[in-house]
């Protein structure tokens, strides 16, 4: 799917150079020891990741050479630091290049030297000028504000403060993008996503558990090149990374169409790389570019390693995609792929109407077992595991 932004962005990349600034990205990259050759290689790789025409690479390089590196404030709330760890695996540009020049990462608790008041001061100074980027990792507990405090301030307070005057918000991981695991039923702390707290600022949601580092760096570079976030779907996810269903781009799709399925862990089909649908794969309901980009320098991704997709880039996947080893319902196995495509269309229609309808709404049989007692009291269904959904629990309701 081609993003509507791409044509516009291409125009922008071709625009005359902006007025010279005091310290451009080119200066900073030079400071950071990034050679011109490495920089151009990196621009070419970015153009590929962002699904822009290859001929734009020199324009991206030209545009990037002229911008100032942005001040970035990275906030961690109800998180596991998995997205931070993903960021530390950045390859293109490398983490060292990011830390030493490409961006000005003035506040990030996991990596910054300063602590306590000195750290808070670094953050406050970074926020005074405005025009910064805020990266958010983790959800915000609105039911128990004391369930996430930093320097004695609540996550909500810190989020509002940091996003005031910001140029944009990048939510990394499914927790800040959609509530994630803290918001899974019964949502003990009333955890919510960032967009439930703040608005009026451009937001991009890089969901995934954790975020794919390549998608994060590509988004940052897109922002640096074009001055705005890439085009997104209705859930705020960039189309370059979340525009296609995993099932449609999966290298194992041929096995699905041929009716070749792994039935048991380690059986012949599993060893031969057959389709994992019958072992619970949620690829037919999940939009993400894992098959093409991979993780850890493109080394692999979960399906390639033999485990089904769990749908980690979708809202409420902890409730809607569980039990993880149950089969997605409504898929006529061994039949044509028609019904699976219908599922996909259902997802698309549902997501397009916004967050209020969640991804697999059309295909998942909802249960309304609101309390733990009711859920615990239920007996597992006879026969093979069934795919069922937990109730959604946004804002602790």
């Amino acid at each position, binding site marked *: 799917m081609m993003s509507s932004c791409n044509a516009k962005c291409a125009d922008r990349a071709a625009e005359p150079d902006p007025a010279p600034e005091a*310290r451009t990205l080119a200066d900073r990259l030079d*400071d*950071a020891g990034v050679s011109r050759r490495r920089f151009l290689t990196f621009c070419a790789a970015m153009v590929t990741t962002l699904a822009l025409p290859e001929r734009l690479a020199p324009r991206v390089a030209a545009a990037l050479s002229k911008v100032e590196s942005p001040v970035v404030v990275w906030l*961690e709330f*109800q*998180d*596991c630091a*998995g997205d931070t*760890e*993903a960021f530390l*695996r*950045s390859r293109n540009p*490398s*983490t060292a290049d990011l*830390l*030493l020049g490409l961006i000005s990462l003035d506040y990030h*608790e*996991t*990596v*910054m*030297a*300063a*602590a*306590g008041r*000195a750290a*808070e*001061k670094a953050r406050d100074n970074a926020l005074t000028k405005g025009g910064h980027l805020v990266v958010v990792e983790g959800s915000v507990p609105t039911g128990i504000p*004391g*369930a*996430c*405090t*930093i320097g*004695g301030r609540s996550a909500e*307070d810190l989020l509002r403060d940091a996003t005031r005057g910001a140029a944009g918000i990048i939510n990394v991981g499914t927790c800040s993008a959609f509530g994630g*695991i803290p918001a899974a039923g*019964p949502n*003990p*702390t009333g955890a919510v996503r960032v967009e439930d707290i703040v608005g009026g600022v451009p937001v991009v949601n890089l969901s995934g*558990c*954790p975020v794919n580092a390549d998608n994060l760096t590509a988004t940052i570079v897109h922002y640096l090149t074009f001055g705005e976030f890439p085009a997104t779907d209705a859930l705020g996810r960039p189309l370059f990374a979340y525009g296609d269903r995993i099932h449609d781009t999966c290298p194992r799709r041929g096995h699905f169409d041929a009716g070749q399925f792994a039935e048991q*862990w*380690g059986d012949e089909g599993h*060893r*031969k*790389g057959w389709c994992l649908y019958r072992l619970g794969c949620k690829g037919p309901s999940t939009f993400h570019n894992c098959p093409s980009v991979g993780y850890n*320098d493109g080394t*692999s991704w*979960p399906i390639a*390693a*033999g*485990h089904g997709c*769990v749908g980690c880039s979708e809202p409420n996947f902890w409730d809607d995609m*569980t*039990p*993880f*080893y149950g089969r997605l319902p409504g898929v006529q196995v061994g039949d044509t792929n028609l019904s699976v495509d219908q599922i996909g269309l259902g997802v698309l229609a549902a997501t397009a109407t916004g967050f209020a309808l969640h991804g697999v709404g059309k295909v998942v049989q909802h249960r309304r077992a609101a309390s733990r007692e009711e*859920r*615990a009291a239920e007996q*597992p269904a006879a026969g093979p*595991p069934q795919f069922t959904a937990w109730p959604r629990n946004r804002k602790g309701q």
Partner: protein
Amino acid sequence: MARLVIDPVTRIEGHLRVEVIVDGGVVTEAYSSSTMWRGIEKILVGRDPRDAWLFAQRICGVCTTVHALASVRAVEDAVGAVPPLNARLLRQLIAASLFLHDHVVHFYHLHALDWVDPTSALKADPGRTAVLAQSISDYPRSTKALFTAVRDRLEKFVTSGNIGPFTNGYWGHPAYRLDPDVNLLAFSHYLDALEFQRDYVRIHALLGGKNPHPQTYLVGGMASPLDPNSQNAINDNTLQELARLVQRGIEFVEQVYLPDLYAIAAAYPEWTRYGKGLGSYLAFGDYTLSAPEKGKPPAGGLFPGGVLVDGKYRPFEPGKVSESAFHSWYRHDDAKPSLPPWQGDTTPDYTGPQPPFDQLDVAGKYTWLKAPRYDGRAMEVGPLARMLVGHAAGDKRITPAVDAALQRLGVPASALMSTLGRVLARGLETQLMAHYTLELVNRLRDNVAGGDLTIADNTKWDPRNWPGGRSLGVGFHEAPRGALSHWVVIEDQRIRNYQAVVPSTWNAGPRDENGNPGPYEAALVGTPVVDPDRPLEILRTLHSFDPCMACAAHVYDGDGQIVTKVLVQ
């Protein structure tokens, strides 16, 4: 006398706050508070136990595999599934490589800046740095040209006036003692370690699709197929790449990490006198290829289990673990504030000040962590505990490694019980683990070559084949930060109760009902603070434990009543 608050404590995983009393330039009292909670165990109640590891894994994205492993071990213990040898090998390969990755990242990216002042490196002579580097290691990246490039890069970065994550560091603090040449060496390796860790952790992608949060565990086995004759399974290509990465790990640890550790330690001998803390140590033991025994930690492995109190070694007994909620933001019964984990009631009860606040009321509840106790006593867990317990047990690998290190530094064994001792112990066990990882790759290759392609106990995959009614399980693991255990109650194929007792809960936990402090709180007492506005020394002792707060502060025992019934059955 001054009360000093450090919040956020940075360069850790998660959210940690400490409040200390400083009197006469020395910490006299300390309170450790975890300020974030999600309630993951509560979220697990009622779900399919086969899904639990995916949830538990998200307890932490730094030690991203330890909770997955403890979780599948706990469920397997409950339902009687036995992971086959290949699965045990794959799990240990992932765990062992996490160990090395985690300790290297801790040393360079989380802890080093407490000892290393990069601004001092600007004054270094790259020629002298090269001579120094070549005298302590045969690491090839030790040339004058390379150190010159790093110094120039650093100079441009610092003079740009915009130093990102290095902003407001305590640069120039009198407690920084390293020669500029050593600072340049260490900063250069800070950058090299960033590149190394990114490559090394590809082991997790090869075996589990991605890192963080590799997606490959199963109750009863692992999901990565093995087949030398398939290009969609772990095959000879994979094993070759694994061996290369593991070898690179050994080289990095022995050529970079350990030489740097000794070079830095030599400049800070007084830090063998600070940060001792409790002097009581606990390790469960782990890293054996034997099949698991019900209800027991893995025995006979690379790390022996045991308890060290007052210098006396005793075997670990699972029944002696309890947790106190007296000072924790959970409901407790004043008559019985300390309970065994399976009887614990941890309903949230946030009684702290509503934010924004300046100080916590440390007389009352003041943290999201409970206070784990062994036989009523607070215990330190982690690398130091493992090395001391292994030494006391006369382990054939640990004993000579520890003795050689003490001899090299010219210090007595008592010096290990200190801030610097923790740093040293972490380095020593990393080296042991690096070599063990290579043994694992070879064992896996031999086993597959012998025709064993089994990766899972499929007989226990279908919950209908599990024991009916209620069953209990426990999974023990030695995680990089120490002794980890997950406890699960399964009832009618659903999770009825789930609890994790985590290394950083042992170490960062608060006082108990008797007022006895946890390990962080004890270790900070006596730490000097030259400049209360720049409490560098406090960070040194805290970071020596490698805090991991998302791990620690997730405890939620969903259904104490039911568990109590189980125990009295």
